[in-house]
């Protein structure tokens, strides 16, 4: 084969991904004295974190003094349908408030209470108003704050650089480095690293209607699994109930849950607040049964039970789906989200400025005067790399993961606001975990040249192929079929169909053909991302077939109820001799003092 020139670097800790988790991890690793670098696919500061809107959940008790980590822990577990890794949920609830204060210490300007403290807003599934926020652009605030902190510390950033393979020393099952390419020129780059932190975010780009950007191709999920790491809960995908549905340019783009947190309600075509018809037994005792009760809850949480508009996301997404199917949808196939008739224009513009502009500029809708049209959009992967709760280390030595790419914290369904706090709580832990590991590792492991050659050959294949399909067509076919066959409501028959579709697309991928050369060529980049998307699609579908029940972000029309048996099982997905295997594993049970929190309530 052709000899390719490869640029080489060495770092104690290499962080892949420059979103909220990757940045926090890099800052921590550097603080422990490790040479640290960040690699990211986009320009620095463009990570998907900037799209997060509503806020960052942390039981600070600034609005409701009764709030504390135990309540947050309980909400998180119940929202996740009890399938969460309890220890991660506990750590998350305990450490989130400190991470909010840390961001403030680094310059973040959260909205304030009248006493000058950090204001907190209501969100789905959270008992108390708990989300620290900046209007409806909290993710931007978090990312920019961390970005400026990282810049002030001089952390080396390789931006517009894509990692394509992790390198593992097979004898010791330990990470040795990574291989990738610069997007600008397409030239190759190799990193030797003692520890690697995967913080690559989500995988939603395998669906047609998604809130994810081009980056959400699940590179980290797939690369870690190919490197031998165990994955967990891959069947659970969150469809955010409120994405824009019209016009076509914005289909799938997120509409913050903050709209409902700040008083907005969902209505169908008959103007009925339909969520009152969809209150599941698990939440019945804590949910308002009349519109009056729900409205007084907004004024003061002691005056009533919470509105069903703020049930966990999986419940709301399914309800919207049912309303549309029953023919009670809005003109463009969604439902109505109305805040105009419930709050003053000044209030709406103040609390939801970016929603106001988004609808005004992109849909010609004035949300202070008319309702929005919304529908479910693929938003978040609950599943991911299985990690140790304390250190964030995966089942491969020296390979760590944090943020959306890691699995466990959110169980079967993530509560809104728990993602931003996840990023910094476990980003920090992964940074420390990786730094500890790197310090106890004397020398860099050698990288197997045969693996490098194989990877390079794979990367260049789309240029060597001829007469294959183009990557855009294959991608679209994957998106359309995942949307249709493995979306919100699933059946065995369709999942099996999807599996053979994946096999079919994998064959097409082997002959995928791109135009042009390696010089900033998005067609080639997409061709390489296809492998990751198809790998993840297969993991997801295989696990979804095995989970013969409905729970959280996994709804089976052929098994509509949650089952006790599956309620104690997490599915582990791993690659064995090149093929993907799924095995059930008994979930860890929580200690008595935590189990106590779920009794008599």
């Amino acid at each position, binding site marked *: 084969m052709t000899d390719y020139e490869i640029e080489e670097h060495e770092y104690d800790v290499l962080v892949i991904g420059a979103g909220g988790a990757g940045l926090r991890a890099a800052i921590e690793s550097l603080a422990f004295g490790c040479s640290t670098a960040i690699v990211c696919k*986009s*320009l*620095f*500061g*463009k990570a*998907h974190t*900037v*799209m997060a809107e509503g806020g960052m959940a942390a039981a600070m008790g600034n609005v409701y003094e009764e709030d504390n980590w135990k309540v947050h822990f309980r909400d998180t577990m119940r929202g996740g349908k009890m399938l969460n890794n309890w220890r991660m949920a506990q750590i998350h609830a305990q450490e989130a408030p400190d991470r909010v*204060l840390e961001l*403030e*210490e*680094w*310059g973040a*300007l959260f*909205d*304030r209470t009248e*006493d*000058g*403290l950090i204001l907190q807003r209501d969100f789905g599934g959270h008992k108390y108003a708990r989300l620290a926020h*900046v*209007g409806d652009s909290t993710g*931007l*605030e978090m990312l*920019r704050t961390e970005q*400026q*902190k990282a*810049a*002030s510390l*001089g952390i080396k*950033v390789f931006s517009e650089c894509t990692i394509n393979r992790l390198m593992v020393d097979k004898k010791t099952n330990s990470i040795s480095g990574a291989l990738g390419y610069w997007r*600008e020129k397409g030239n190759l780059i190799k990193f030797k690293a003692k520890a690697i932190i995967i913080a690559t975010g989500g995988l939603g780009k395998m669906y047609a209607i998604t809130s994810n*950007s*081009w*980056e959400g191709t699940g590179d980290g999920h797939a690369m870690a699994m190919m490197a031998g790491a165990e994955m967990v809960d891959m069947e659970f995908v969150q469809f955010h109930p409120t994405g824009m549905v019209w*016009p*076509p*340019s*914005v289909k799938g*783009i*997120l509409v913050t849950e903050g709209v409902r947190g700040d008083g907005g309600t969902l209505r169908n075509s008959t103007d009925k607040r339909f969520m009152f018809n969809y209150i599941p037994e698990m939440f019945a005792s804590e949910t308002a049964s009349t519109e009056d009760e729900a409205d007084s809850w907004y004024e003061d949480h002691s005056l009533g039970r919470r509105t069903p508009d703020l049930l966990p996301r999986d419940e709301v997404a399914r309800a919207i789906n049912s309303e549309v199917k029953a023919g009670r949808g809005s003109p463009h196939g969604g439902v109505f989200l109305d805040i105009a008739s419930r709050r003053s224009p000044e209030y709406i513009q103040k609390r939801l400025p*970016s929603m106001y*502009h*988004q609808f005004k*500029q*992109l849909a010609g809708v004035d949300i202070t005067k008319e309702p929005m049209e919304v529908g479910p959009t693929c938003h978040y992967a609950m599943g991911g790399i299985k990690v140790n709760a304390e250190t964030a280390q995966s089942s491969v030595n020296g390979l760590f993961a944090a943020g959306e790419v890691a699995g466990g914290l959110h169980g079967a369904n993530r509560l809104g606001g728990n993602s931003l706090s996840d990023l910094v709580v476990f980003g920090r832990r992964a940074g420390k975990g990786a730094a500890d590991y790197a310090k106890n590792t004397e020398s860099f492991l050698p990288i197997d040249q045969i693996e490098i050659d194989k990877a390079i050959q794979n990367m260049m294949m789309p240029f060597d192929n001829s007469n294959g399909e*183009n*990557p*855009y*067509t294959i991608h*679209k076919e994957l998106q359309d079929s995942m949307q249709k066959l493995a979306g919100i409501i699933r059946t065995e028959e369709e999942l099996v169909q999807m599996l053979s579709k994946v096999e079919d697309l994998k064959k097409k991928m082997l002959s995928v053909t*791109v*135009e*042009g*050369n390696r*010089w*900033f*060529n*998005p*067609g*080639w980049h997409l061709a390489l991302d296809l492998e990751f998307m198809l790998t993840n699609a297969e993991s997801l579908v295989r696990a979804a077939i095995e989970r013969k029940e409905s729970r959280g972000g996994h709804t089976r029309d052929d098994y509509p109820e949650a089952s006790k048996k599956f309620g104690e099982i997490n599915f582990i997905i791993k690659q064995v001799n090149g093929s993907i295997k799924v095995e059930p594993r008994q979930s860890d049970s929580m200690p008595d003092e935590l189990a106590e929190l779920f009794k008599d309530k």
Partner: protein
Amino acid sequence: MPLVDLKVWRGDDNGEYISYLVEYDEGEVILDVVHRLQSTDAQDLAVRWNCKAGKCGSCSAEVNGKPSLMCMQRMVNFTPGEEIIISPMKTFPLIKDLVTDVSWNYENARKVPAFSPKKVDTDGKHRMQQVDIERGQEFHQCIECYLCQDVCHVIRDHPENKDNFVGPRFFVQIASVNMHPLESASQKPSALYGFGLDYCNITKCCTEVCPAGIKITDNAIIPLKERLVDDKYDPVRWLGRIISKGKSGK
């Protein structure tokens, strides 16, 4: 679907505009049409994008000469039959097609002073009033699309100024640190020297193109200029500087 005549810059500095007829829907934005072109007739067309909702600032370009985000330009706002010319941002070196080398901005980001906060209250918390942080929150809305840098004639027409001028985006960042209610150190006017504030002659071009609606000139640049000038021409401070220079023996 109707067709639009899209004229797109292809290649590097030696490239050229190439015309394409591309299908479009009225409910789409320019970026959708560029993506359709990319998935059909120009598969290696280089273009940056991420969020497609005006929040990440990646898809900056010049559409019919106007610096703008391609994801916020609705097709419905163009006259049917109108030719649409898409060019890369002019102020930055061209890499390929619509992608430019914006690394100069990242170098500037490392030059501007970092935030250094006051001590927390005795209960471990900071207190700030909403009214005192609103200006800062306005500055924090910056999505780093660099359209303000692109349109700024100090560097657009005079690249040689790039060594001495950080540009509107970083005046906003300096202002956001400088006016942060908890900032302790860089509020000293001396922290404002060396960024080329005096090059700006407040033509407000940056404010006009800002997709985040930040009043860059009025709220960031002019107040910074005033602080700088206050310091430089304040007779007491001037005298103070003379005396302290004398004491240090210089």
